[in-house]
């Protein structure tokens, strides 16, 4: 999948067709020209976050160990999306069972709390304009 610098302005809602079939993703970028975007964060009834919170950040997902590698590694994610939200998304993408565990690590050193927002992590631990997160089916860094 093309990974150019452009970001999609709006998250696509709902399932994408053949993309979903191939990758299992619930969201996909418009035909290769923009960066893939996660489905809009938040449950029905959540208010639209104002100002900065609507800007998305770039997240690079790296697999650890023998965890399946995602075909699409770079995603534009809303700042208010939580780690739990990201975990659910990756599990769906990789077609993992809901009961299977998935651990996410920042800086290859700590596992953020499931309710932590990726925007805050990006502010504190992002580099080169993106937040690198490692994901693993087993505990990698304790």
């Amino acid at each position, binding site marked *: 999948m093309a990974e150019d610098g452009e970001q999609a302005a709006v998250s696509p809602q709902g399932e994408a067709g053949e993309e979903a079939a191939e990758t299992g993703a619930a969201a996909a970028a418009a035909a290769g020209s923009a960066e893939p975007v996660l489905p809009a964060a938040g449950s029905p009834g959540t208010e639209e976050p104002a100002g900065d919170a609507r800007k998305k950040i770039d997240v690079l997902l790296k697999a650890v160990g023998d965890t399946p590698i995602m075909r699409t590694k770079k995603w534009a994610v809303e700042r208010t999306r939580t780690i739990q939200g990201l975990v659910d998304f990756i599990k769906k993408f990789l077609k993992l069972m809901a009961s299977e565990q998935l651990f996410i690590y920042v800086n290859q050193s700590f*596992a953020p709390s499931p309710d932590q927002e990726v925007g805050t992590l990006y502010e504190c631990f992002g580099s080169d304009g993106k937040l690198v997160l490692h994901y693993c089916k087993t505990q990698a860094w*304790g």
Partner: protein
Amino acid sequence: MRQRSTPRPARRPPPPSASAAAPGSGPERGGRPKPGGSGAAPEPRGRAAHARVGGAAPGFLPGAAAPARGGPQFQPKKRTRSTCASLLLGRMTDDKDVLRDVWFGRIPTCFTLYQDEITEREAEPYYLLLPRISYLTLVTDKVKKHFQKVMRQEEINEIWFEYEGTPLKWHYPIGLLFDLHASNTALPWNITVHFKNFPEKDLLHCHSKDVIEAHFMACIKEADALKHKSQVINEMQKKDHKQLWMGLQNDKFEQFWAINRKLMEYPPEDNGFRYIPFRIYQATTERPFIQKLFRPIASGGQLHTLGDLLKDVCPSAITPEGVSYLGFNRAFPAAQPCVVAFDCSSYTPSVPV
């Protein structure tokens, strides 16, 4: 900044029918452990009696600092950046009374079973002194046992706690929960206990102590990532990590600080921690907390103060009168250098403003 109407929670003797059990799995104790050298409950040090608030996430800054104690002021010979910072820091780490006050802060709490829970006989309330620095699910085994005695096995699911309709996040330190939700109310803090209808959207599950330990260690690691690029925590052995946790779980100040001291150090040639680990919680907003990169030392070489921190990351919190913060059991003036505040409060999250 909210002023509390009542001074720091005084320890009230529990009613005869309940037991004021010690927190965590430590030995049974009749009451509040006494910090070295003083039998009375420590009063807040420094200027005014501002409300005491605190909360903590291990490794994070509270937004509060202890004013320097009485005694000779330290006069650095040469005003170099590193000398200044490390001397102040060294001084506060030596001030064990301050560290002890933070560690041994307690909140008298009354646990009541939710009225809709089904019981075989009436459930009496349970009184407990909760340690500010610990976590609800770590220190409430006795509470759980007390209520489960009057319930049938099939009615019992994962325990969760609520205050005036708000589910209490167990992964926030107890002191923070109190300061955010109940600091302006009379004591004891009245918490409702539930065993049904776990609020999935509001709370994380806590199926075992391992979950609490993992969360605690993750906080310590995140803080060290900001302070030392994770170098100090990564150089430690597994047994040192375990000692931090056991110190918290068993309420062992010396055991904890023997290791935490290393996480609070930095070599003088480095100008303090790389970034101050802090979180600012506000009761008035939906946002979980504010956490940003903030250096301890300004470009001119002087130490950033707590006032600088707030101005930078949370300017809406500053009132015309200025701000005062509350850390664990003490007020901290806004002029206090961040690195000092951080040191004496060890792990602390920032406090509600």
